[in-house]
């Protein structure tokens, strides 16, 4: 049985307005809503809700990083599909813009009292924080 297990994973990351990754990889780590989990080839089928955080995948010894928030992951033995609400590659992140978004969200959070707006601002803050985190970490690593 063991030899019938796949040795690679086909990883697809799509967000509502574009497709970000469509590659064959060796390992993926996904930010699930209950915590991070790693996926190696031959994983049992899994359907997971995603939280906000950093997703990385490994091709050989090469690591790639993505910032992402919310959505779903479908894991099959030879395939991982990520349907992200928001996702961005680490090298695409504009640090200055993320920083500005963070400041803006913080200001809004401190001034507005209406629930709806606060919720949106909180999400914006969360997204900008992840972006900053992923981008700075990717910089340190490289």
């Amino acid at each position, binding site marked *: 049985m063991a030899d019938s297990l796949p040795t690679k994973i086909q990883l697809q990351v799509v967000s509502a307005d574009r497709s970000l990754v469509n590659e064959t990889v060796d390992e993926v780590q996904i930010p699930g809503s209950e915590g991070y989990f790693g996926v190696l080839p031959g994983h*049992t089928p899994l*359907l997971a*809700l995603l939280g906000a955080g950093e997703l990385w995948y490994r091709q050989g010894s090469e690591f790639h990083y993505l910032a992402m928030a919310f959505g*779903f992951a*479908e894991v099959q*033995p030879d395939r991982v599909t990520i349907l992200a609400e928001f996702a961005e590659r680490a090298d695409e992140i504009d640090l200055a813009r993320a920083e500005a978004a963070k400041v803006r969200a913080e200001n809004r959070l401190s001034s507005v009292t209406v629930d709806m707006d606060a919720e949106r601002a909180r999400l914006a803050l969360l997204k900008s924080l992840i972006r900053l985190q992923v981008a700075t970490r990717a910089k340190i690593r490289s």
Partner: protein
Amino acid sequence: MPSLIDLRRRVRAVKNTQQITKAMKMVAASKLRRATERIMNARPYAVQMQRVLASVAARVDSSVHPFLAVRERTATSRTLVIVVTGDKGLCGSFNTNVIKGAGQYITSATEPCTLGLVGRKGREFFGRRGFSVLFEQIGIFQKLKFDDAKVVARLAVDAFTSGEVDKVVLVFNEFKSVMSQRVVVDQLLPIEPHEVVLEGPAAKAGDSQVDYLYEPAPEKIFEQLLPRYVEVQVYRALLESNAAFFAAQMTAMDTATKNSAEMISSLTLYMNKVRQAAITREIIEVVSGAQAL
């Protein structure tokens, strides 16, 4: 016989029309480019979503979530038909085709239909004819956003979960290519399990028998996944319709420009004939006058 001045005026009028149709064609072409780009970008997500849902639906029982359960037909069953038309005209048979498609569906449906109208043209048509209309969404194509799709999806989902309707159907123009649009009737709710198309490695025997692990519990995932799926389907329908609209408008305006060019040339020819006839007549008058002397 019309006078020369009248003809000249007509030629000028047709030229003005031609300029307008030409400009509209160009505007539609550039908007079409943007719209197709958006739909191309949105397609992978919608397709993957459909694939995931199909393989999920193949494994779970339809009673897990109300969106998956087909309701038994009763005397009070109703269907919500969401008709996606354009906000504007001047686009050939674009709106007529959707309206016709929706009309066909309504008349052939076994249970009474309620309408959800997206786009001004649909409202103008159905609103006047005494159909029962559940909601209207107008002017969203100007600046189409995901939030617009969310609003429509919300309305549909609310009607479905409250039991007001037992089935939701989307009727819209699918963007196939610049030259062709196709009217599509898609069932939105309940989500049909027959969409399962096993392809590639997933088609391998035994693969789909294994149940998923869920994290968190399946109810929680479905609670988010299925409404999201509905939103994405609506969003895709809106984008398709939007791109198809501009394609239809571009073709219609192209034809109009060509027709007016034809009209101008035939009018000019006629005008020249009239002018020539007048000149000839004058010469004859002069010559015969000179001979009479």
